[in-house]
């Protein structure tokens, strides 16, 4: 135990003397919060909508002005033919093309069935589906106007009227969804990069060999690397949260204590993983490769952007050992829904098991022999 205190003293002295470390600890949370939170959004605004109006009737003009009035679309006139429309999609000048056939107003008048054609750039399928649903909602509105103009009372129009209330994020603010996720990434950045590289650096410079020839115990060495970065990570989390609070006015529904408790468990898991990775490699370049590779997988599979529930079964099974997935879920539940301990107890428990697992892997994996 006394030995551990000597080792901790050494680590803290080195951290305090390292100007890069201090800069990183302050700049990383600031930049991550101020850049990632507002930048990553799936909310779609001002899609480029090209309209080919072959009808040129008051009815078609009315539809176009309705679309132009929506904040979702920026309308432009498009060439008459379908090939020209295709070229617009191909060059990216338009995200979707609406073609109004020349019998559109005749159709509305009841002579034929009124039809519209929409071509959507679906390279990004999420965006395509959102664009399509925005467009159809405008058309449905327009349809309603037309029907009402015929004199029918709204109540006479059959149909179910649904009106949504968006719970936990009533204004559908994407920042509220992303911020808890970005806080998770912040912990990963500090834990995985700073702690892992620290141990590998000692391996590279040769100081670790000197340590290995002492009777030091493996757990003492590993824990002496965990504790300093654990403290740094929590400080950074507090800093990131404060920045987020001030800059984005995120509602914090749940208990801050619970939030920090879960983040602390997660941080231990990340540090265990970092130190385990560092036992597998022989230099910093290899470490960065391994750490970067696994971080990417863990983050993308965690449900930060796309709900993990809609991932294939095997992916969901993988997430059993993905610490990021647990905290991603917990953070959003606690911050946005105000979930309490009993709601997240299971995830917390499993995350603790993972944390213990990674720490023991790091201790077992560490070799005092080269």
């Amino acid at each position: 135990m006394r030995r551990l205190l000597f080792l901790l003293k050494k680590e803290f002295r080195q951290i305090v003397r390292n100007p890069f470390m201090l800069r990183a600890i302050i700049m990383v949370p600031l930049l991550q919060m101020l850049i990632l939170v507002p930048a990553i959004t799936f909310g779609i605004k001002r899609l480029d909508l090209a309209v080919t109006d072959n009808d040129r009737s008051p009815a078609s003009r009315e539809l176009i002005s309705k679309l132009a009035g929506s904040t979702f679309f920026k309308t432009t006139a498009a060439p008459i033919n379908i090939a020209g429309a295709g070229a617009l999609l191909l060059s990216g000048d338009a995200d979707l093309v609406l073609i109004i056939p020349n019998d559109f107003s005749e159709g509305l008048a009841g002579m034929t069935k009124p039809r519209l054609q929409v071509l959507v750039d679906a390279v990004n399928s999420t965006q395509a589906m959102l664009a399509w649903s925005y467009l159809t909602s405008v058309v449905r509105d327009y349809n309603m106007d037309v029907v009402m103009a015929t004199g029918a009372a709204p109540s006479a129009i059959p149909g179910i009227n649904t009106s949504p209330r968006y719970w936990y994020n009533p204004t559908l603010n994407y920042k509220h969804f992303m911020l808890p996720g970005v806080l998770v990434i912040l912990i990963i950045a500090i834990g995985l990069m700073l702690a892992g590289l620290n141990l590998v650096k000692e391996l590279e410079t040769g100081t670790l060999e000197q340590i290995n020839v002492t009777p030091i115990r493996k757990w003492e060495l590993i824990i002496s690397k965990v504790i300093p970065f654990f403290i740094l990570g929590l400080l950074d989390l507090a800093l990131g949260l404060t920045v987020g609070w001030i800059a984005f006015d995120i509602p914090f529904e749940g208990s801050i204590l619970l939030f920090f408790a879960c983040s602390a468990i997660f941080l231990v898991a990340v540090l265990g993983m970092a130190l385990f990775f560092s036992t597998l490699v022989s230099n910093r370049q290899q470490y960065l490769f391994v750490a970067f590779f696994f971080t990417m997988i863990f983050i993308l599979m965690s449900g930060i952007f796309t709900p993990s529930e809609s991932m294939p079964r095997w992916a969901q099974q993988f997430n059993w050992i993905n610490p990021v997935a647990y905290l991603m879920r917990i953070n959003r539940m606690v911050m946005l829904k105000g979930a309490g301990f009993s709601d997240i107890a299971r995830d917390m428990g499993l995350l603790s098991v993972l944390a213990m697992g990674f720490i023991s892997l790091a201790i077992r994996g560490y070799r005092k022999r080269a």
Partner: protein
Amino acid sequence: MEREKVIEVRDLVKRFGSFTANDRLTFDVYRGEIFGFLGANGAGKTTAMRILCGLSRPTSGKVTVAGIDSHRPEEIKKRIGYMSQRFSLYEDLTVNENIELYGGIYGMTMKEIRPRREELLRRLSFTGYGNTLILALPLGLRQKLAFAVALFHEPEIVFLDEPTSGVDPVTRRQFWEMIYETASRGITVFVTTHYMDEAEYCDRITIMSEGRIVALDTPSALRQQYGTASVEELFVKIARPQRINA
């Protein structure tokens, strides 16, 4: 009087895949002696030393260091000091902090460390350097300090892996004075070196070539046996690899 063996090596073999780094090494080292390990680059000196320090395991053979079998390396580590080829003190810590760290790792308290540290600094004429970062010390002083740190917990045996490479002649001389002083206190010094003049300072030397021991005796006995005027000449005569692998 029977001299006390502190290192016993019998038929030590170390293989890396198909490459045999140490081929049936057998030797003893006695308490308080300066035992020199010589050999060309790649002869297997460092491999053997790392096994003796518990940093590597023998493929076969029996190794006992300070009375402890090599299968219990952590017990061996309590009783030895080691100074590696690469400089291994923490450059971003001060002289005092490095000494304190290693003292603490070997289980000493600050109370025990402080007086011994002051005495050590005085002996090295380092007084006044206590709060200097290692980074700011010239290489020679660093090496002397590294040696002193390896001895700080008073081990039975100290292993020095090419301790004087890259050091100026004056510091080298001082370094060897430290080695003598250490041996006179009954601490066994096991040293590998490239410098043949240094080999002359050893009580006994071992010459390795291609993983084998090709000579082991006092420098003067070996010179006589091979009829050479210096260890250097002797080394060139017997340690040269017999063949060059294509």
